[in-house]
């Protein structure tokens, strides 16, 4: 148990001393996962809206499929992306493997199903009379969506929080397509908090792992506070 206490002390030390490696890793985690969350939102919200308001055949099956994809293991997502972007894959020419870009792509795809599914839930939480009122007031498609989203703001932002949580905490895809590289330049490195935690764990450095875990949670807390602030505005 003392490892946990040690972990807290270590976390405090790393933060207080501004350990440059830890800072680089943390910043990279934030950039990658935030980017992925934003990209995923840009896809998931319109997609969720299209599915929710759509009346195409197979709509129910599609929703079921999306719910099923909640269970997509991160390793499988990592593998699929890996096959696509590895040199012999169809996008191999872009040389994306082992780059932060690849990690963003993987995390984006990873959180898409849950964000799309929760968008559908968020929209279905809006009072039907509100929807009718917007239509009746002569909203264009875009205006309609923008206003429905404003009404569903709270739930949509909760969705973003969940997406970010899943992105920043996943490790399977990050390690497969990122490679957990610690290079001398920031841009070439792909080590993020979770892959660093895995590495420390595999080396038996439990206190360090816990310290990094605490830092990760601190970041998540900060992001959540921002989201909560927007929610209540």
């Amino acid at each position, binding site marked *: 148990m003392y490892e946990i206490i040690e972990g807290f002390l270590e976390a405090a030390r790393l933060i207080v001393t501004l350990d440059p490696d830890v800072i680089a890793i943390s910043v990279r985690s934030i950039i990658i996962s935030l980017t992925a969350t934003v990209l995923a939102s840009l896809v998931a919200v319109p997609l969720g809206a299209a599915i929710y308001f759509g009346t195409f055949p197979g709509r129910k099956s599609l929703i079921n499929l999306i719910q099923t994809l909640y269970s997509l293991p991160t390793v499988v997502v990592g593998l699929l992306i890996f096959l696509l972007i*590895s*040199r*012999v*894959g169809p996008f191999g020419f872009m*040389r994306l*493997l*082992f*780059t932060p870009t690849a990690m963003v792509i993987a995390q984006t795809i990873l959180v898409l199903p849950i964000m799309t599914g929760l968008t559908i839930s968020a929209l279905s939480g809006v009072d039907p009379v509100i929807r009718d009122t917007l239509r009746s007031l002569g909203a264009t498609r875009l205006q309609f969506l923008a206003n429905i989203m404003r009404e569903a703001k709270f739930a949509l932002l909760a969705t973003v929080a969940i997406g970010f949580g899943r992105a920043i905490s996943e490790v399977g895809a990050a390690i497969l397509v990122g*490679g*957990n*590289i*610690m*290079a*001398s*330049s920031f*841009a*070439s490195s792909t080590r993020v908090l979770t892959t660093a935690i895995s*590495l420390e*764990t*595999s*080396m*038996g450095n*439990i206190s360090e792992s816990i310290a990094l875990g605490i830092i990760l949670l601190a970041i998540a807390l900060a992001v959540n506070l921002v989201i909560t602030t927007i929610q209540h505005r």
Partner: protein
Amino acid sequence: TTTDQTPVEKQQLRIATTTSLDDTKLLAHLTPIFEEKYNAEVLIVSAGTGKALEYGQRGDVDVMMVHDRAREDTFIADGYGINRRVFAYNYFVLVGPESDPAGVANMAPEAAFTAIREKGTAGDANVIFVSRGDASGTHSKEQSLWKAAGFNYTTEVKGSGDWYQEAGTGMGATLEMANEKEAYTLSDIGTFLAYKGDLDLVPIVDEGDSLLNVYCAMQINPAKYPDINSTVAKDWINFLISDEIQQEIASFGVDKYGQPLFYAAQDDWEKIGVTEAEVKDPIA
């Protein structure tokens, strides 16, 4: 080859390595020296031997550093790898609980394995062997030891009873598991030393040529992947077998563990059973 993220003048070298080299921090110790000397940037991807080979086979890296002779040979024979050089070696170690329930301390490796299996299959609940079970270099070595002891691994060892358990994870986790279950396991010395402080396990058998663990580096065949970064790859391999770096390897870890983690391959080519060219001749 260069990717868009790097400054133009710097070359990038991608290396897939078995975890033990990375986890011991040996590579972290060597890369800065290389980077400064060759104005290059080294990207290290550490993975199990199987995955590392997969990366190599797909041309996703320029250099591979592994420790599984049989699979290396196949890899080269299939035309994926060239210019193998051996740069370091050490020994595997059979570790187990201090009580040594199978009573195999200081036996020859094959004999120890035979004794453990015997007690295990006989139903002695105290005798357990935890295998990496992940097709890693270490797992390969374990399999070859069973074979050398005269057993058919798939029929007579694996699945022959609850005494033999496949961890299916990395070395560190396997050691943790063996520690928890008070079981035997085969480990590379580097990881064991790194973990030693947290474990109650002790070395049971650590001598015998069959425990030899040989690390090599090889280039991915540019004929297969023409745009691969073969110049820096060559530089890296030549760097590893250079006199200066061989010294570094031989002394690495002494200050921390009181004993070296690796031995330089340079002068011991006969002992480890490779040709002199493989340890000494720089790649042209």
